[in-house]
């Protein structure tokens, strides 16, 4: 088994501390920062949006 990342170099998806993402960019590391929020935030609204998304697909 070979860890390809050790040959390819890191290509990052960064969750959490944005300063880490900034430092990655400074070093030229390909990186995407995710504006992540925990699942409980706006739980009822997110649930509604999820249902709308599923419902929309059925209606067409």
């Amino acid at each position, binding site marked *: 088994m070979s860890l390809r990342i050790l040959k390819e170099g890191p290509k990052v998806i960064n969750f959490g501390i944005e300063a880490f993402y900034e430092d990655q960019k400074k070093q030229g590391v390909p990186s995407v920062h995710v504006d992540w929020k925990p699942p409980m935030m706006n739980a009822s609204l*997110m649930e509604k949006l999820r249902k709308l998304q599923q419902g929309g697909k059925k209606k*067409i």
Partner: protein
Amino acid sequence: MSRMRDIRTRPLSVSADWNKSLEEYKVVSVYRRTVNLEDTDGRRCTLITEQEDFSSRTALVESLPVAEEGSFVSVAAEDAKIGYNPSLQAAGICKKWRPLILEWQSFLADDDLAVLADVWDGVNWRPLVGLGPGLTPAGDDFIYGRLAAHMRLFEDDDSVVSDFRRDYRRGSTSKLAEGFYDDLLARKIWKRGRALLDALAANDAQRVLDAVKCLIDWGHSSGRAWLAGFAFGAGEVL
């Protein structure tokens, strides 16, 4: 009413649907970076100063003429280049973008768009017409986005678009917003929206992110509302 024919402006470029044979326009509303005009047929035309603001019947000028609402200006566009083609061609959207696009549905969770979230049930656009904050009501922006997604996928009206075309009642929203509906149903799209569609088609991630940022930065809520509607529309067809 005095016609101040001596306010004359020569655009640098115009949208492909700008009527070069018309010259006289009435000033309807004046903003910081745009001026809305009305042509002799009563249609909205706009003078802009930034490329990103191109849309249908739009002319890019060096600087906005100093004119009051209700006055008249002359726009001499005979030598202007074509700066933007608002035509919305059906081209499909690559399925790989679906997860990213669906994220934009959550703009409805923003405080200022909660009024839309309260009435949107996933199907019925009617309560959204004319609803919400913004010079063009956010509910209309949402519907523009949703329709744009459907029209991007299909050359001919699908059931969502024909449902809207059939049932939209004139006068349910501001004249300006209604004019945008007319343009969209004539398959014309604004440049910010077009930039996103082109970026998705080109599979260029950075261009997509730039286009999304450009939309989010537009107006107070218009851009986000459009993106949310686009995301629901795309979710229905992708």
